[in-house]
Structures are given as C-alpha cells and as structure tokens.
C-alpha cells in the first residue's frame, strides 16, 4: 500500500503512464492523456518522444498545458512545426501511440466525441468533434484510450456517432475501410479496470481490475458483452512519488487533480 489515499483519476493516470515505453513516440490529446504522458516522461520513460498536433515536437514538459497547442507544449522542444507535418509523421509510421479520450466507446473501441442523440442536425449535446482524434486513431500504430466515469451510458453497444475508428465492425474492418494493417486500439484505461482487445474477435478484453473492483462490477458497468482474460491482474496503486509528481510538478493548480 502507499500509506496515502489516492483518487481513481490519479490511479488511471499512473496506469496509463505505465503503458508507454521509453524511446517510443506518442501523440497526445488534452486532459488525462496529457497528464499520463507527462508522468511517464518524469518517471519510467524519460526519453518518451511526445508530439502535439499543433506542431510541438519532443518537448520536455514542465507544467500541464491547458491546450495541446499552448506555450507549455513547446517547453524545451526540439522542433516547432505544422499540424500537417505531425499528421504526415504519423502516417509515415513514426508515431507508436495515440492517446485519446471520448464521451462514448463501444466494444470495438470506436470512440464518440462528436454528439449525443440520433439527429446529426439537432443533437441533444454537441461535443467538440474529432479535432485530431480521428487522425490519431487512423494513423498511429496503437490507440490508447482513457475513459473515466466507467458506466453503461459511456460503454455502449452502439455509440451515437463514430468519430474515431476503433476496430469499426470487427476483425479486418479497418483494413476493408482503407486504414493501414497493424493499427487500432490497444488499451482502454478506466476508473474501474484495464482492457486490451482480444486478438481474434477484436472485442474489448478485461485484463486487470483496480483494487476492490470485481469482474462482476466491470460487467455491470459495461453496456456490452466483454471478453475476459484467463488471468486478471490487480492494478498496482500509485506510489507516493507518483502522487507527489502529479500534484506538485504536473498540476500544481489542481486543474485535473483537485486537492481536497
């Protein structure tokens, strides 16, 4: 145990950070993905190559950016370039991971960040849309997804709108749509558990639960039939050092990790 309480958001961020290997390249979106990439760079993956769609390349991030295009994203960067150059790098195969969130997700990892409702012209709630998410999910090798508030309204059988491609309708669907082979979602990190995707069915597969969470809890919170791995790990809680970095270094203003 850590000897200190932690929140589920903190735990998710720490687990997300651990998925990123040192000396690989990640393109990150706003919010928790950004915090996870920063934590990775400050702990296990000091040589993590971070790129931002606004054009920041290889920054050494100091404090949490508000935007994936603000001054903080080019702190001690090696290059400042253009959005299209970042997309071209990704298309050419340089970017290992894309790190995204969304409002809804289905069993194939398709993400909705566009709208809630079934009328495109008059949605119940309009969200930002793709931004760079569809580009990232189409072009990077692996898409990692962070979803907090894991529940049946967010983990749904059919998303209201597929903004960003997961495995679309299942095995080979990405390739048939014209997306590159060997790409697609690889992890979903939630406030209950960690999923990967079954290699054959391409359906979300439970591989770890957070302390105190059962397989049944996860099934109840998920609006579709999941795959379950033979062996389920229990997530390792954040260390005191992880929490110190999150609060004191990455987010001292408490924008995404409020201090009570």
């Amino acid at each position, binding site marked *: 145990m850590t000897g200190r309480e932690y929140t589920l958001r903190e735990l998710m961020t720490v687990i997300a950070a651990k998925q990123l290997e040192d000396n690989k390249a990640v393109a990150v979106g706003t919010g928790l993905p950004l915090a996870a990439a920063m934590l990775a760079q400050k702990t296990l993956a000091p040589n993590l190559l971070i790129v931002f769609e606004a*054009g920041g390349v290889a920054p050494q991030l100091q404090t949490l950016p508000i*935007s994936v295009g603000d001054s903080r994203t080019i702190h001690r960067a090696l290059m*400042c370039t253009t959005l*299209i150059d970042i997309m071209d790098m990704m298309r050419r195969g340089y970017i290992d991971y894309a790190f995204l969130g969304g409002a809804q997700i289905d069993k194939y990892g398709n993400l909705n960040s566009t709208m809630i409702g079934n009328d495109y012209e008059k*949605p119940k709630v*309009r969200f930002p849309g793709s931004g760079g998410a569809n580009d990232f999910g189409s072009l990077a090798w692996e898409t990692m997804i962070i979803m907090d508030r894991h529940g049946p309204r967010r983990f749904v059988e059919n998303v209201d*709108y597929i903004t960003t491609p997961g495995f679309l309708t299942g095995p080979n669907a990405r390739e048939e749509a014209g997306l590159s082979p060997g790409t697609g979602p690889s992890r979903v990190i939630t406030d209950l558990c960690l999923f990967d995707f079954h290699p054959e069915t391409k359906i979300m597969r439970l591989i770890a639960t957070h302390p105190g969470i059962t397989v049944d809890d996860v099934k109840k919170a998920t609006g579709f039939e999941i795959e379950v791995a033979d062996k389920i790990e229990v997530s390792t809680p954040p260390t005191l050092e992880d929490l110190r970095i999150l609060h004191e270094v990455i987010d001292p203003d408490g924008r995404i990790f409020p201090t009570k």
Partner: protein
Amino acid sequence: MREFTRNNKTRAMIDKRMDVDEAVKKYVKNGDYIAMGGFGHIRIPMVTIYEIVRQRIKNLSVAGHTAVQDIDMLMAGGCVSNVDIAYVVGFELRGLSGVQRRLFESGQVKKTDYTNGAMSYRVRAGAQGIPFIPVKVMLGTDTMRHSPGKVVKCPFTGEKVLLLPALNPDICIVHVHRADMYGNCQIDGHIVKDDLQVRASKRVIVSCEELVDTEVFRADPGKTIIPFFMVDAVIEQPWGSHPGNMPYKYYFDHEFTENYLTVGRNKDTSVMDKWLDEWVYSLDNFNDYITKLGAAHLYKLRDDEFLRPPKRGK
C-alpha cells in the same frame, strides 16, 4: 484562383499598413468563407476578430480548424451561419462553450464535420491549386459519412483512399510575432496551419505584435513563413491575441476567459449581449480594449508565459 491572383494580388512591395477597421471594411464581406490562423486560443488574430464582430459582419462560413476562442467570439457576435468543423464547442481543459452548444444543438448554425488533419489536407490542396486530395483519415467512420468525402481506389495501386475537396477561403486572418509594412511575416514557435491557409486564401489580413524593418527578413530569410505578396493588409497590434496565448510573449488570460465562458453558459442570452456591449461594441478599437484591461493585468500574463511569479503591477 489563378486569375484572381493575377488580377488582384500586387507583387509590388508597397506599404500595406492600415487600421483594423479599414482592413475589415475592405476585405471581409458578408457571406465570406473565413479561416483563422493559430490554434483556437493560441496566437489567434483576436484584434481582427473583435473588429469583425464590431462591424456586425454576417453569414460567415468558417473553417473550424482547431477552433476555440476565435470561433466562439464570432459565433457569440452572430457573425456565423456555417462551419466546417474539425474542433469546435470545446475550450480543451476549460470545458464546453455555452454559446456554441446553443447554436449547434438548435441547428441555427449549419455544419459539416471533418478532422484537424482533414482541414489541413484541404488547404494543402487549395494552396497547391488542385481540386481535391486523397487522404487516409476519416475512413470507415461517421465523420466520413457526414462529410462530402468520397472513397475511391487508387488508379495505380488499388489502395482505398478518401477524396476530400480542396479549400480556398475568401479571407484568411492571422496574427504573427513580427511583420514589415509590406507583409513579410515571422512566427516564433509552432506554425500550426498558417502557412498553408495563407497560401490557399484569396485575401490575407495580417496583424503583428511588432512591426519591424525589412532587413530583419533579409538577415534570416529561412524564417519568413509568409511572403509580402500574399498579404493584403498589415496591422500592428501588440497584445493582439488577447485573451489567447502568444508563445514567448504572453500566456492565456485565465481570469478573462473563465469569466467569458461563464457568461456564455448563462441561459439568459442578454448576459452575453451585455458582455459584448461592454467589451466590443462600446469600444472604438482594440487600443481601448487593452487600456480597459490595464497594464498591470497584461504584465501578469507576460510573467505567466515565462513561468515566473508576478512582481510588477497590482
């Protein structure tokens, strides 16, 4: 476009400085398709955006390419009827905009969804002077199904690609770190999509933090992002991106923007009308706006940019 360029874009090095009200009167028309430089709330041409609102330009179509504070102000001002969306409604970490949600959810403002990459590809095609561009994004998704994109097979390899139409905006407005009176421009930090958007657009209004001598460009020509002959108007306006972040100059004005977002989320739209009156319509120009903000307030944004504790002002 070629004919327009030949007949309307001077290749003479002439002084193009003007006040922002004159530039907007001359080059921004009701019903124009407009593209903004920067990244939604970073290095955005707010000086020109406020003026467009002040002049009550209507029925603009907007390239909602990484659009945040820039498009929000235009929409709050009632200037917009149609948006090509890549990113809208969101203020990233700050949450959603009430103004944009109202206008998009009611269907008052029409829209077509794309992606940030797709919008960049479209202006790349526009800059290149070709009618469409094959891309490898949007495929298989609703983002594609709700767009005019067409899936075809490559005539050489048989590979599936999505064709998107080129984009040639009527007017592009950008804010840069420094320009000369002829329109040569340098940008510090990331370029986002400004290079391509300027090259794809018919008319270009540049605003700059600092007006400099042409020798600055001759001394380091590799740093010129926009050459003079693409530019129609040059406006010198320090703090011209406020309340946005201008890299290496000033950081976001959090206080101003959080307050603005709260105003926009109020269901009573007269609260936003009052805000617009106070900060746009009742002011003659951007100089009055920065005077109203006050020097101490602005200097704090400069301290924030360089991650140093504030020492001046108050």
